[in-house]
């Protein structure tokens, strides 16, 4: 066991598992303990964990990962339509397809590094988005989005003699995956995704990725062909994105091209940076925070705000409502942007750096050991 996983990693995984599985309980007081939102926490957590393998470990900033998310969604819905309503084949199919797609896009984009790499990924993702609306309409069903119908062939289900009444929904071994079942299904995948990311970060391969981020030139003069390493990281993160996209299709079997838009690609970048680039837990926390505030803030409107500020004198409250209304509802991105700017300026390492600083503060006040020398930063 000691060589399989260090004690520290094991405790982290255990703690993470408990926190995730208990989310319906501890998030209830925050008004976020309902399945729909919890599912999204899991899905975008997976997306961010995978994105961090490319961005956080390897140092390649992709602005196009929503493309793989979208491909995962489409692939899963097609699996529901053509093969079976069971979720497992859909997940496998989605991960394979998005992995292949990432292999092609990654192969092309990784001919460049730095900002040129980022621009290339952005260009390919926008191309995919536009294709989904135009040439690829037979596959994507264009603006309407790809959805399940009673007329779908579902050859495996048909062969098994299963028939459905009413609107078809994804299942797991015959059980419907709505509500909390859907949440626990997604949670299982998040924990698995986290575990795999942990293994990767703690492997020789993971160390090579970090070394590429640190000094690619030295890597090459040390005898490593860095291209396949970066490509592997790209494909793995693409598969994570595809997995997340497929889970979204499982919980809501309607795939639309807007999932591939550049704003969706940008969102996962924000999640990772907000939480802490290069840390294991950070990106997940970033994803949760962004999805939480998106949910809370975008639901607010002028009426709610007016009630909230009603203790202020009439004239003042009108002004305050007017100002704050710009930051909620559709304007919640403004709040997100502000929060992001503040974090990046004051906590460049994201929320995880804040946690580290707090921990260091406690340790310093707790014990007076002068251990301030530069020690290696453990990768959480």
């Amino acid at each position, binding site marked *: 066991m000691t*060589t399989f996983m*260090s004690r520290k990693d094991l405790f982290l995984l255990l703690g993470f598992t408990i926190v995730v599985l208990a989310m319906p309980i501890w998030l209830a007081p925050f008004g976020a303990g309902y399945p729909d939102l919890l599912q999204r926490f899991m899905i975008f957590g997976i997306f961010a964990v995978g994105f961090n393998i490319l961005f956080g470990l390897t140092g390649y900033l992709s602005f196009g990962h929503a493309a793989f998310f979208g491909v995962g969604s489409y692939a899963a819905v097609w699996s529901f339509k053509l093969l079976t309503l069971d979720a497992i084949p859909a997940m496998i199919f989605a991960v394979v397809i998005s992995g292949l797609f990432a292999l092609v896009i990654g192969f092309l984009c990784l001919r460049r590094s730095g900002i040129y790499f980022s621009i290339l990924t952005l260009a390919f993702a926008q191309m995919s988005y536009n294709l989904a609306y135009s040439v690829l309409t037979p596959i994507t069903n264009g603006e309407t989005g790809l959805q399940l119908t009673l007329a779908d062939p579902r050859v495996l289900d048909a062969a098994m003699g299963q028939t459905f009444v009413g609107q078809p929904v994804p299942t797991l071994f015959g059980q419907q995956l709505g509500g909390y079942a859907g949440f626990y299904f997604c949670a299982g995948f998040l924990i698995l995704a986290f575990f795999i990311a942990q293994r990767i970060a703690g492997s020789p391969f993971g160390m*090579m990725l970090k*070394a590429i981020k*640190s000094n690619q030139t030295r890597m090459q*003069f*040390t*005898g490593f062909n860095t291209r396949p390493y970066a490509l592997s990281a790209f494909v793995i993160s693409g598969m994570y994105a595809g997995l997340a996209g497929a889970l979204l299709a499982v919980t809501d079997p309607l795939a639309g091209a807007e999932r591939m838009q550049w704003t969706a690609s940008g969102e996962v970048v924000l999640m990772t940076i907000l939480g802490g680039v290069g840390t294991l837990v950070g990106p997940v926390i970033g994803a949760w925070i962004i999805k939480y505030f998106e949910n809370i803030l975008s639901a607010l409107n002028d009426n709610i705000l007016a009630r909230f500020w009603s203790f202020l004198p009439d004239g003042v409250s009108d002004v305050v409502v007017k100002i704050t209304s710009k930051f909620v509802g559709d304007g919640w991105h403004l709040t997100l942007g502000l929060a992001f700017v503040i974090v990046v300026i004051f906590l460049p390492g994201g929320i995880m750096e804040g946690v580290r600083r707090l921990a260091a503060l406690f340790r310093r006040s707790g014990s007076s050991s002068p251990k301030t020398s530069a020690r290696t930063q453990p990768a959480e």
Partner: protein
Amino acid sequence: MEKSNVVLHVADVHKRFGGLHALADIDLQVEEGKTHAIIGPNGAGKSTLLNVIIGKLAPTSGQVVFDGTVLTGRKPYQINQLGIARVFQTPEIFADLSVLHNVMIPALAKRDGMFTLNMLRALDSETGIRAEAEHMLEDVGMLGRREMLAGSLSRGDKRRMELAMCLIQHPRLLLLDEPTAGMSRHDTNTTIELLKKIKSRGMTKVIIEHDMHVVFSLADKISVLAQGRIIADGSPDEVRGNPKVQEAYLGGAH
């Protein structure tokens, strides 16, 4: 001296940067197991020569042959895998990683080759490589700093660590670009001691060095480079006595 002893042959190499003829008609033969020093004033083309050898730069014409294999046209990682390692003029290290990991990485390159997808193996289970790296760090006197972040080391320590990163690969040919430049007197002396220690290991070395004490105490053979040309080469004594060298280089320095 027989031809068969030559392990590195830089044959008629030219390198132009636009109008600048940085290397002109360089022909250099390095013998197996020897320490070959390259000296010359700043801007003579010494670093450029090493860059051509390890594939960082392509020569404008000519080629480099290592033990019967043509290096020219190969990628830096392929050249390294053939057994050539280099210490750079400004240390090229993994500043964000620990000293220990900095030294383990080249050892893994040597063992596993240019690419391995070993992502489900635990780094902690690489006890052999770890022990090897620790041994290497002990050799260069840096075992006590193994957990430090490489970027936080002093300049001298960075250089020594980089040397350890090269030595752990047991290269057949080691290229050293001014290994003592910018070091304190103390660091310079420890580095020289270290280089003398490796000298006795029978590794072939090409060393660029400004410090004449270092050069004359280490080198078996010296080539003098000035304005991209080799103006003299021979044993330390021959080079010291060469009037052209006195004029072009040593004259000013001594």
